[in-house]
């Protein structure tokens, strides 16, 4: 599954980083704590969060995530969008609450990766 396949599923729009829409989605992780994501998310994961500042993009880049989904209709900070564009990391924004976003990803076949440690 590619990041672009998530757009309809999550009813989300691409805020920035469209260059990475063909990234393969290999798994998923949900958290609002940056260190927790650093420690447990894996390369190619979709990350669901309600954090929407530039450090989110820095973390996503460092662990080579497939994309970031900002849930709950939270506004992305302009600096986050600028950074996502620069790094080519898709920053997606959905009006759906995080719980619903994760549920839809699960139904679409995305799983947390075992041993993502």
């Amino acid at each position, binding site marked *: 599954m590619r990041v672009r396949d998530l757009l309809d599923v999550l009813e989300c729009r691409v805020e920035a980083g469209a260059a990475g829409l063909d990234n393969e989605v290999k798994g998923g992780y949900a958290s609002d704590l940056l260190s927790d994501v650093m420690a447990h998310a894996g390369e190619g994961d979709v990350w669901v969060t309600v954090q929407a500042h530039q450090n989110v993009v820095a*973390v996503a880049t460092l662990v080579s995530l497939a994309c970031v989904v900002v849930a709950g209709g939270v506004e992305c900070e302009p600096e986050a969008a600028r950074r996502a564009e620069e790094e080519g990391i898709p920053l997606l924004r959905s009006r759906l609450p995080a719980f619903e976003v994760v549920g839809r990803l699960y139904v679409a076949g995305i799983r947390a990766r075992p041993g993502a440690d």
Partner: protein
Amino acid sequence: MRLECRVTGGDFQAAGEAAAKLKRTLRQVGIDAETGRRAAIVAYEAEMNIVIHALRGVLSVEISPECIEILANDEGPGIPDIPLAMQEGYSTAPEHIREMGFGAGLGLPNMKRYSDEFRIESVVGRGTSVRMVIKIASKGSQT
């Protein structure tokens, strides 16, 4: 090979740049992805600790064929009780920083967990030094 990056306390704009630079460099010199990931994690946590808690600091990295050595030295308040600071979930980060998703008390534990050697020293009122070593898996023994 040696890398050195200055890190400024309170600068959340530039935060993560030192770790990103390290990750790019490791990829360029052909370090395997898992080792690169571990180095990026510990460097990022060390960098963020300086941004969150210290006035300023320097992240220096020495890359040899056997290992990656990361030193984070800062001028700052120091840590009065290191065993307490090493506990998962313990943090002294202020509320506005926690709201950004930092300060969950995972930084130091992550640094220890993802490095092969970890040493921390601190002088209250002066600053903190962290030294971390990540061994590079020799070719053929990579999993």
